[in-house]
């Protein structure tokens, strides 16, 4: 394993493992607790496989009350808790520690209420993102945030990471579509935040909770804003022979007043990999934009005409409208599977920095230079409309030293993002992956106040250990608090 350190497991907890498991088994139905080392192994990592550690136990509760029961056991026995949705985090957001209990949400899968008059759906948070929209389809609504992993990822994970997606250019990210949450605190207390009304009428605790990466509580139920399905949507593909001109096209579209629902960017290495999987017929060129607009057929035609005019002025290699729904589906299937499809080329780490849109061309050029410097290939696929970049650094995990080089390259890219006015992570979260880079974006005091907020919710720091805050900073902070 590589550069990112994890804390030493607490030997006093490990020694009490049998009692902890027994207490969990007492509090929960038998098939809810997994503790056999052969079985906990499968929970040792999420989609960031470079970091792995099997937990002490995994529990798969079926209700808020069961989650609360686990929390009470863990709080009583001083055992850290790592919440896990579908385990699709690319940032190691669900990486266990050897002395922790993983609380999985996979069995919290009930849809509790669909209310189209008040435009919300209430679900248990283990439901997958895509299944929420599928459930709403007969009602003419959908749930807008659409992370690429939406097929598999859970609402719980979406809330923890404040997930975005391709279509958030128009509809916003999770926090803009979350109306309420049932939260289990470390005490085992169950709290309702927000609800079907457009709140809050006090402090925005829900806004604070969303994106807190499991540091403050575990969300077991959620009230989600639902949006009427557009009459239609159509993506167009615009191919360019260079990254910079593609970046310019993005800026001009945004300035024009047409607001597409999504503007996505894929470069040539990425296009090759996804074409193998999706067979979408992507143009063969240096950079491709997928621009999607919505509305009635006439509205779509009108917006596409405007975009065509903007693109034409920049001399694109190709401008292609999807011909039918299957075409559009294939185009999106390719984009949404891009990370997975890159697996065909080898191992990679996927970054998630955001830069101001105007800085895209410069940032892409610098990434190219850094790629040469580090001697590792990089592919780019990202949400261009909001500057949320996903450079994928390719390496060979079976060759010693390569992961470390890829990580050093990644750190350089993220520092670059901050330097040009952006941030470390746009939608994947800090997790363990970017934890030690937090200092690049925040001063010590900015981090201190965030840790003080955690103190309020989780005074013993049992929730999702060793994530978000640099280890040294959090250790120093806790020492200071203890004094």
């Amino acid at each position: 394993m590589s550069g990112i350190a994890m804390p030493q497991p607490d030997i006093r907890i490990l020694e009490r493992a049998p009692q902890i498991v027994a207490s969990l088994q007492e509090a929960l139905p038998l098939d809810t607790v997994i503790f056999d080392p052969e079985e906990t192994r499968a929970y040792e990592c999420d989609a960031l496989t470079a970091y792995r550690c099997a937990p002490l136990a995994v529990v798969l509760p079926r209700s808020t009350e069961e989650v609360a029961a686990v929390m009470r056991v863990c709080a009583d026995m001083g055992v850290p808790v790592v919440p896990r949705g579908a385990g699709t985090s690319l940032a190691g957001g669900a990486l266990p520690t050897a002395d922790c209990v993983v609380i999985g949400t996979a069995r919290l899968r009930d849809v509790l209420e669909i209310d189209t008059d008040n435009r919300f759906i209430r679900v248990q948070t283990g439901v997958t993102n895509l299944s929420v929209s599928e459930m709403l389809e007969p009602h003419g609504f959908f749930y807008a945030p659409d992370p690429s992993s939406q097929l598999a990822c859970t609402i719980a994970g979406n809330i923890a990471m404040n997930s975005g997606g391709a279509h958030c250019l128009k509809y916003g990210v999770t926090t803009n579509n979350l109306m309420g949450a049932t939260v289990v605190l470390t005490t085992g207390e169950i709290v309702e935040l927000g609800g079907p009304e457009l709140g809050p009428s006090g402090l925005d605790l829900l806004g604070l909770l969303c994106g807190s990466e499991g540091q403050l509580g575990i969300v077991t139920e959620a009230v989600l804003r639902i949006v009427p399905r557009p009459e239609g949507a159509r993506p167009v593909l615009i191919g360019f022979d260079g990254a910079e001109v593609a970046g310019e096209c993005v800026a001009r579209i945004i300035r024009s007043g047409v607001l597409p629902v999504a503007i996505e960017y894929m470069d040539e290495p990425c296009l090759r990999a996804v074409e193998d999987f999706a067979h979408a017929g992507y143009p063969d060129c240096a950079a491709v934009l997928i621009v999607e607009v919505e509305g009635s057929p006439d509205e779509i035609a009108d917006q596409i005409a405007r975009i065509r005019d903007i693109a034409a002025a920049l001399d694109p290699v190709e401008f292609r409208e999807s011909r039918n729904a299957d075409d559009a589906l294939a185009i999106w299937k390719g984009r949404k599977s891009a990370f997975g499809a890159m697996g065909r080329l080898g191992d990679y780490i996927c970054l998630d920095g955001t830069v101001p849109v105007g800085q895209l061309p410069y940032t892409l050029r610098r990434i190219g230079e850094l790629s040469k410097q580090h001697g590792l290939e990089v592919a780019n696929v990202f949400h261009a409309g909001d500057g949320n970049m996903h450079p994928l650094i390719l390496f060979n995990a079976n060759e010693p030293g390569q992961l470390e080089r890829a990580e050093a390259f990644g750190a350089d890219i993220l520092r670059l993002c901050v330097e040009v006015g952006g941030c470390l992570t746009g939608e994947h979260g800090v997790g363990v992956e970017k934890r030690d880079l937090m200092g690049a974006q925040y001063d010590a005091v900015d981090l201190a106040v965030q840790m003080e907020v955690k103190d309020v919710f989780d005074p013993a720091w049992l929730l999702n250990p060793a994530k978000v805050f640099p280890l040294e900073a959090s250790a120093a902070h806790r020492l200071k608090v203890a004094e």
Partner: protein
Amino acid sequence: MQTNFTPEQLADPATARSNEILRSCVHCGFCTATCPTYKLLGDELDSPRGRIYLIKDMLENNRVPDGKTVAHIDRCLSCLSCMTTCPSGVHYMHLVDHAREYIERTYRRPFAERVLRWLLAKILPYPGRFRLALRGAGLARPLRRLMPDARLRAMLDMAPRAIPPVSPNDAPQVFPAQGPRRRRVALLIGCAQRALNTDINDATIRLLRRHGCEVVIPKGIGCCGALTHHMGRTGESHAMAAANIRAVVAEIDGGGLDAVVLNTSGCGTTVKDYGHMFRNDPLAGDAARVAALAKDVTEVMAELGLRDAGHAEPLRVGYHSACSLQHGQQVRAAPKELLAQAGFMVLEPRDSHICCGSAGTYNLMQPEISGQLKARKVETLEALEPQVISAGNIGCMMQIGSGTGVPVVHTVELLDWATGGPQPHGLAGAGAGG
């Protein structure tokens, strides 16, 4: 993802292949979403990603698997839905096949289970023995309540009450094409299928002949090996497959063949994989030739184009996509398009990518999960209010048929009817007549 095999381990071709597969997995978790057992059980260990992890751990450490590991891998339906979903192209089928073989070799199952698996392996692939067993089931039915094992009861429940007589069409012979010959094809007549239902082969032969195919039932053809292959009994499955390969190759080198036609998609998936199964065998070349010619009957029909359709009633057909067809062979559009061209109203259920729970011998070995999947499948199919349900795999037909009053027939039976053949037996008196 990273793997830890020694060079010695990688010298074994099966392990080398598994390493290659594991290396292509990025652990993204997409596969969990479309896995039937994960959807039911909600434990990652019962998902492809969890099983891949269990297999990786077992193979890397040359570990004798424990009961729990085996249980999770046994629960896999081999429906291969995960392979359709996987963006990284992880060949889960080859990996789980390797794992099953490894388990069969290294793990000693409890006695009752060993007996059960032995029985299945010795009966199902042999139509004669299977017929006898089915008669036996009829005698045993009154004793059902005394049976200690849910799996035994499941077997009994699956056994049909009426067993068709042996069809003369299943004997080795050549059926000439009607009209000018357009293709010469071999029909692999299957094993369990022809004990359970002779209409399917009969309809297939009529349909192909009517569309200008000379249909050969090769001499020496038997079980394709799929049933035992999925039980990890590689020795038996390879022996059966080898016999088939020789039989087909004799025809290729004799009268010549344009296609090897399968109408049991579970077998089709395996026959199409012969090249891989025999890649390190002297038969490799022949196996690859057979695999390359293997086609589902609907693939062949899509090539030939449906002629003079419209003889059947325009029924509402609930089309069930067999996993082996849609995931194993990636044949999705052809059956639906053919049925539509034949004049039927084709309807597809919600979650059509999810398995019905049949999955070879799965419904016999894992009756509980299988039963839940069956109930879901029947519910979503019945929601379509179909007049008939069609599928391209005998296993699915039996499974779904045991849970619904709606008649279940093979896709070729409907196509045969629409192009001038008799109305499928299953439809007679089922309210579909007019």
